[in-house]
């Protein structure tokens, strides 16, 4: 059976200027990811994993090459255009959670739905918080939650809009083993529930092995 290609990178390169001159941090990378695939990007620190992920999610643009996400060429869209695409198709989980401190757990989860103009945001979000096991913490502020709880809120927020692609950059990097394990479990469950595509960067071999495919980066290139 053939599946749609949701994410496609063609010869993408990212250069930055540094005091020592032009630095190539991602070098001529090409690959494609099909719908509902689970892909892990691994590699040593400084290999360019985060940089690649940022470009795939449209947070950053490659210096050269093309990226298409859900059939849209990211490199031809402007900032707001990419933002709209993210609102519709993309979820994101970060190593350091990035919840908005002035919003409650529930409001944090509601945010992407509200941004996409959904009127049932509250109900969907409450359900999703219940799904990650935080039904009783909806009114709490991020600073009142533990790291693991915060990451669960972040997971709920990333999945609530049923994105086509869920990106995660070291989602367990800031958590202890046991909590990390629970979060990983949840991540894969949610992914299966909503049949989204999952692209995650990790240092954790055990997470990588649970993915359908593993891309290894080294020195800015794919090996």
């Amino acid at each position, binding site marked *: 059976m053939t599946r749609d290609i949701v994410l496609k990178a063609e010869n993408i390169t990212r250069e930055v200027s540094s005091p020592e001159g032009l630095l190539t941090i991602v070098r001529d990378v090409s690959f494609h990811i099909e719908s509902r695939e689970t892909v892990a990007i691994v590699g040593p620190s400084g290999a360019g994993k*985060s940089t690649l*992920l*940022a470009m795939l*999610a*449209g*947070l*950053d643009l490659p210096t050269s090459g093309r990226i298409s996400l859900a059939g849209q060429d990211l490199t031809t869209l402007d*900032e*707001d255009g*990419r*933002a*709209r*695409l*993210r*609102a*519709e198709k*993309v979820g*994101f989980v*970060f190593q350091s959670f*990035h919840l*908005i*401190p*002035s*919003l409650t757990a529930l*409001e944090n989860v509601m*945010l*992407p739905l*509200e*941004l*996409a*103009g959904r009127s049932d945001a509250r109900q969907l979000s409450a359900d999703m918080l219940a799904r990650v096991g935080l039904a009783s913490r909806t009114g709490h502020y991020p*600073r009142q939650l533990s790291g693991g709880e915060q990451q669960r809120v972040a997971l709920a*927020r990333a999945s609530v809009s049923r994105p086509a692609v869920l990106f995660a*950059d070291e989602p367990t990097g800031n958590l202890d083993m046991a909590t990390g394990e629970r979060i990983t479990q949840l991540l894969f469950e949610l992914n299966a529930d909503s049949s989204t595509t999952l692209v995650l960067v990790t240092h954790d071999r055990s997470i990588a092995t649970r993915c359908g495919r593993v891309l290894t980066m080294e020195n800015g290139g794919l090996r």
Partner: protein
Amino acid sequence: MRAIVIALRSLSREWRYGELAVLLLSLSVAVGALTGVGFLVDRINRSIALQASEVLAADIRVQSPRPLSADNEPMARQLGLRTARLTTLLSAVFHGDVNQLTNIRMVTDGYPLRGTVTVADTPFAPGTVTRQIPAPGQAWADSKLAAALGVKIGDNITVGARELRLDRILISRPDQGSAFQEFSASLLMNEADLASTQLIQPASQVRHALLIAGERPQLNAFRDWHAQQAGQRERMADVSEDSPQIGDATRRAGRFLGLASLVAILLCAVAVAMSARSYVRRHLDAVALMKTLGASRAFVLTVSVTQLLLLALAATALGSVMGWITQSWLISALQGLLRTDLPPAGLQPMLIGLLVAVAMLAGFALPSLLQMTRVPALRVLRRDVGPPTPGAWAAVTPAVVAVIVVVYGTLGDAVLSGWFVGALAAATLILGGAGWGLVSFTAHSRGGSGVAWRYGIASLARRRVESVTQIVAFGLGIMLLLVLATLRRDLVTDWRASIPANIPNYFFVNIPSGEQEEFRARLTAQGGKVERMLPMVRGRLVTINDRDAHAVSSSGGPAGPDDGPPQRGGMADREQNLTWSSELGDDNRIVAGQWWQPGDEGKPLVSLATEFQEELGLKLGDRLGFDIAGERITVTVASFREVKWDSFKPNFFIVFPPGLLDGAAGTYMTSALFEPSSPGEMTDFVRRFPTVSVFDVGSLLAQVRSMIDKAVTAVQSVFVFTLLAGLTVLLAAVQASRDERSYETAVLRVLGAQRGMIVRSVLTEFSALGLLAGTLAASGAAFGGFMLARQLELNYRFNLTFWLLGVLGTVAIVGFTGWVATRSVLNHPPRSALS
């Protein structure tokens, strides 16, 4: 719409972070200063105009030695103006055998149109205000006339062919003027009795005047109409041209208050800019995250702008309440100084307040917000990614526009506003440039002693842009405060000095020759402090350089005692009071030529006051011919004197050297500080020297003094607004540095830094910042004060203590700010800042 919902929802929580509170406070203070003071200033200005009117007893006075055109009054009334007539003439008033030359004033209902008349039942008693004029058949004599005639209320006096009943004692009238030599006894009566006095004869020195009052546009319309009448020979005096001295103090107060409220508003603007920066800095992560989640720039901007607009509304409401309370309080504090018959400020102030709040936000907060929305979503992965640096124009233009709007809106005077904005721009540039240089220079001195010192200086240099911004913000704030404080001090000193304590409160004229020493002795014995005694002879200037003086002089008809405030004209034509004196008083200053040298005694020379010189266009060496009691004498102009008339000592336009006029049988005049223990004491004194005319200027002085004291109170209290505004800057600064430092301080503490080390390093950093800002601010203030003092017609005095105080004060204040900011950070466990 969604954006607005989100804005509303997060507003209450944003509150806890403090910038919004500081924003609200600074906007409220600005609106309060504007509505409270700005509108008071408007009232003061209108009050001044009215006070000036009081000296004319009208807004416009049309006068002529001939009967006035019959068209004037109907025209004025048709324009909706109020009118009254005033006819004056000089004649003797009789009571039995006694008579006194008197300035007789016949008025119609409504007199005075501006100002008030006060009356009493006994001479020299305190007066009470009346709104009436004497009824037909009755008359009000002033204290001098009543004392001279020895009449009391109910007695009959004779004016021309008419017998009148003395009904009241006239204590004061608004148009009594201040040309003291011209004072004479006066009598107020009803115009209805004019004909029956039979005093209007072809030869009699009558002056006819029409008093007019009303709104400015109509007054101007009347003026224009009047000027266009064919063969116009009637003179017009208009308050908008003749601004009497009394208005000066209040006018300056008005300008100063306007400036004070402006400074308050600008300080608040600095606070707004600083809080907006903190707000933005704290929101960068959230905005990047929102964008990652798919929010557009417009959406993010809408959220922030909604929050700020709500804040502007709240600030307007709060500020208006503050302003209203201030204004009510000031008005009650300034009662008597300000007219109570002015319409109170309406809703308009609130509207303007809202406008200013929005303008301040647009100018000082919006650029930062726009900048914030440009932060790339990538920041969620790489914290060092910030918004692109804005183009210099994009950052500065809105602020400049806002400043211009606010300055012009507050001062309403294009020239002054131009000066102010220019000075502000120059100060900002200089502060910025010098700040940059100093920070760079300081960076090299970090080799110094101790880790605290090194770390403090290092962070000053590392955050170079922030440091320079803070130097500019603090520097500007302190500079504005210092300029204002300097001006306030100069203003108060100047005012107080303009009416020194213990200056003469009575003038005595017509002291018979030969009795002057006895007069002085008696008055001194009764506790009076008597000034110089000057002889006084009447004379007429008849020739200038051997030509007819009347032909030479340009001005019109003769001027009488009731031309009101500073009037010239007819100096060449009129009987003058002349004197001679060997000494030049300390209230006279020679501006050209020389005062009498030894040996000048008896020489045909003359010394003239500059007013006289200007009026007739004279120069040193001109020859003037005088007719003194039928004798001709020709003298050469030897010097010109600038006379301080407000010393209230005897002074004359024309002074001869002693020995020249000794033969002329004159009288003497003097002034004295004298506090009669009872009104009767003065009456007795006048009866002992029946020919002596007494003029009480004490009540006028007291009035001016109390006005000055009230103006001083107003100025002091408005200064509170400025200080409050300064406080908001401080709060904003604490806020900014706290947020900036909380993370860093936490890291330092985790690394094992002791509280003491952190406090010392922050104190080092902030004191250095304060020293830089303070030095620049104090020097700028000295210069700014100097320039502004010229605008406000004040004497500027550089004061080293003040300068030092400015520098040290800034060090203390900025250091304190840093300490407070750090303390609040140190009091939280470092974990909360790191998690």
